[in-house]
């Protein structure tokens, strides 16, 4: 008898404490929600029904705190993060959803590399144009998510204005000036200057290469072309034609002179990752997101720095978009969220916290952005440098429906010459030709 009463008491006590906790929590959240909900009710008076919005992202968009902020501003909205492990998985998921004409996520994040494919099915996506976003981005950025007849299907998130990251200690070892201004001046504005300095660097035999991978340089050079692979008017493949824009780039990068300056690494491999911590190469093409990768790969290497320069002219590498499927149940609420997430105020916060550089013109000149320095890169004013690199960007290359596949085949062609060294430049180009012809 005594035992049972004790048990009973314990159970009631437990239940009571849980009930107390639960009620405490709920009352707490109620009281904290009240002021904000009354504030937000003025801007979205119509929407009080409970809505769940699923946002499909990949890598790191830096939205965690912003989701919380948005949910407290709009108590009726719950945001679910649907993050893919690899960006390739996210791309396959989007394409499968479009192919089956189903809506799995209310907002879909897409890399600029996939935008050409998504622009082929504009009907799947909601027209996102509105007065508030009219001049939010520079023309080259919004052009990437605008169809031929002027429908805006994606809000730009981040951008990748390219600079050059370099190793101070290796520059000093080669007898070159190593402060940011001198390095920027020495690298110069053309690729010829860059490779000339590379030759000088290599002649000092420091044991390090001048750059990491010709595949990476090619990406930077492709971003400076008008139409690397396809005809902007007809979308026909021009990469193999006599007046191909990519062939001269390929020939330059696979020339003996340039190959001699390469560290013969393939981007994103474990070897490439490990090389950042060693004395493997002195320079590296460096969009803002690359600074995060360098920091992550070589946390103890204190000699990386950023120079405010880009050979061949200012250009952009990477950056993403948020898209809203038109058939989503809460497409309007999703559009409002996507609008809010890509607002300059929010993207400036993301840059300060995560380092994803904003693509919104207003955000790139925001004092919180331009004032950011990076202790890892010797206290370099990265905010100001990338802002300087961003302003002069005028164009993005034309990317047609074959861009993704051709770019991968080109990457393979470089790897065969630069990394595995299994083919001569000419043989590897022949294999590239076969791969491109197979697309037709």
């Amino acid at each position: 008898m005594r035992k049972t009463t004790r048990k009973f008491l314990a159970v009631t006590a437990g239940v009571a404490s849980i009930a107390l906790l639960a009620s405490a929590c709920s009352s707490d959240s109620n009281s904290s929600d009240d002021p904000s909900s009354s504030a937000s009710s003025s801007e979205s008076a119509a929407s009080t029904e409970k809505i769940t919005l699923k946002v499909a992202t990949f890598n790191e968009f830096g939205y965690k705190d912003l989701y919380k902020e948005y949910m407290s501003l709009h108590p009726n909205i719950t945001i679910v993060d649907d993050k893919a492990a690899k960006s390739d998985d996210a791309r396959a998921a989007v394409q499968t959803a479009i192919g089956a004409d189903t809506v799995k996520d209310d907002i879909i994040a897409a890399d600029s590399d996939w935008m050409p494919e998504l622009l082929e099915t504009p009907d799947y996506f909601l027209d996102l144009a509105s007065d508030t976003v009219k001049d939010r981005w520079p023309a080259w950025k919004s052009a990437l998510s605008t169809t031929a007849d002027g429908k805006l299907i994606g809000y730009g998130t981040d951008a990748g204005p390219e600079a050059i990251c370099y190793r101070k200690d290796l520059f000093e070892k080669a007898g070159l000036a190593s402060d940011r201004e001198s390095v920027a001046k020495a690298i110069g504005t053309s690729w010829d200057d860059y490779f000339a300095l590379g030759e000088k660097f290599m002649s000092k035999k420091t044991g390090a290469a001048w750059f990491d991978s010709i595949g990476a340089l090619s990406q930077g050079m492709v971003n400076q072309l008008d139409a690397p692979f396809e005809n902007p008017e007809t979308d026909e493949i021009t990469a193999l034609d006599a007046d191909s824009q990519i062939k001269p780039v390929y020939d330059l990068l696979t020339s003996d002179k340039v190959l001699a300056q390469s560290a013969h690494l393939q981007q994103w491999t474990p070897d490439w990752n490990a090389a950042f911590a060693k004395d493997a190469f002195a320079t590296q093409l460096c969009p803002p997101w690359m600074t995060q990768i360098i920091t992550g790969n070589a946390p103890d290497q204190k000699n990386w720095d950023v120079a405010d320069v880009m050979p061949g002219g200012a250009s952009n590498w990477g950056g993403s978009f948020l898209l809203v499927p038109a058939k989503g149940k809460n497409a309007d609420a999703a559009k409002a969220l996507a609008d809010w997430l890509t607002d300059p105020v929010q993207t400036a916060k993301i840059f300060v916290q995560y380092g994803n550089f904003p693509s919104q013109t207003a955000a790139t000149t925001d004092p919180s952005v331009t004032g950011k320095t990076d202790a890892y890169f010797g206290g370099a004013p990265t905010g100001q440098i990338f802002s300087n690199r961003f302003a002069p960007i005028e164009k993005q290359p034309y990317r047609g429906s074959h861009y993704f596949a051709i770019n991968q085949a080109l990457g393979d062609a470089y790897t065969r010459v630069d990394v595995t060294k299994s083919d001569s430049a000419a043989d590897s180009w022949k294999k590239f030709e076969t791969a491109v012809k197979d697309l037709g």
Partner: protein
Amino acid sequence: MTSTQTPQFAGPTSGEDGDRQQRRVGFSQKLGRWDVKLSPYLYISPFFILFLVVGLFPLLYTAFVSIHDWDLIKGQGDSVGLKNYDWVLHSETFWKSVRNTFSIFLLSSVPQIIIALVLAAILDANLRAKTFWRMGVLVPYVVAPVAVSLIFGQLFADQSGTINQILTNLGLPTIGWHADVLPSHIAIASMVNFRWTGYNTLILLAAMQAIPRDLYEAAIIDGATRVRQFFSITIPMLRPTMIFVIITSTIGGLQIFDEPRLFDQDGRGGADGQYLTVTNYIYQLGWTNRNFGRASAVAWILFLIILVIALINLMITRRIASDQSAGEKKRKKVRA
């Protein structure tokens, strides 16, 4: 196997029931007869309905897709007859992927079954803490393929990898695990073996434990050594299980996807298709090149290849089975 056996079971029972039926008439009896006649099929029907939906339908639909121009996003295009098959059979990359698939399959399945057999024989012996050792071999199977690929990625990295570091320290030339064809196959096969050897070991071990112990006792009395016992008793008695293990690992081996896809960061089978397998090629055609027509054609060719190999397996199975009964007769004669 079960599907062909079940109706046989139902046959004699229902016949017996039919004789009784003629004597007593009534609806409930009729129901009872239907019950006996139909329920076995009803009980196995979930599997076949499921098979129809997720097996047969996709198979036929893939055949339908393969004779069309079919874009991943835009969907069905014109009907093109056998053009996709023609293209695939004339594609150098396709034959490369067939070569890679068979090479990786042989490099993984053969050592895997031999090692599993030896491990099972050791585990079958009187060990202390049996369960511990037996569960131990299964641990790699539990590890997720992605985690396995991370571990092996560190081992087989071309410059910074553990194996090449050791080779360098020993003054030996490094191996291009991602650059050369055979080393890349060996590396991938070792990932497969790491994962599946333990699984096969346990199946073989279970079969070994079912071998009557008196056979071994008789052999010991006859003065047979452990090795002789293994080759003359264990292996012949394991034949049916061996066939099962070989068939399942053949199917798995020809459809190998995860390991080569996770072997590098791109997952496209190497810059020169050094380790591009047929299933990876299907993925590449379908999702990178967005050509579902060609991808489906490759899928069907792979299906036919597996069918041919399964038939060869079946023939060998029959021969071994008859060999076994012949062997048993011989043994009986010897004993008598």
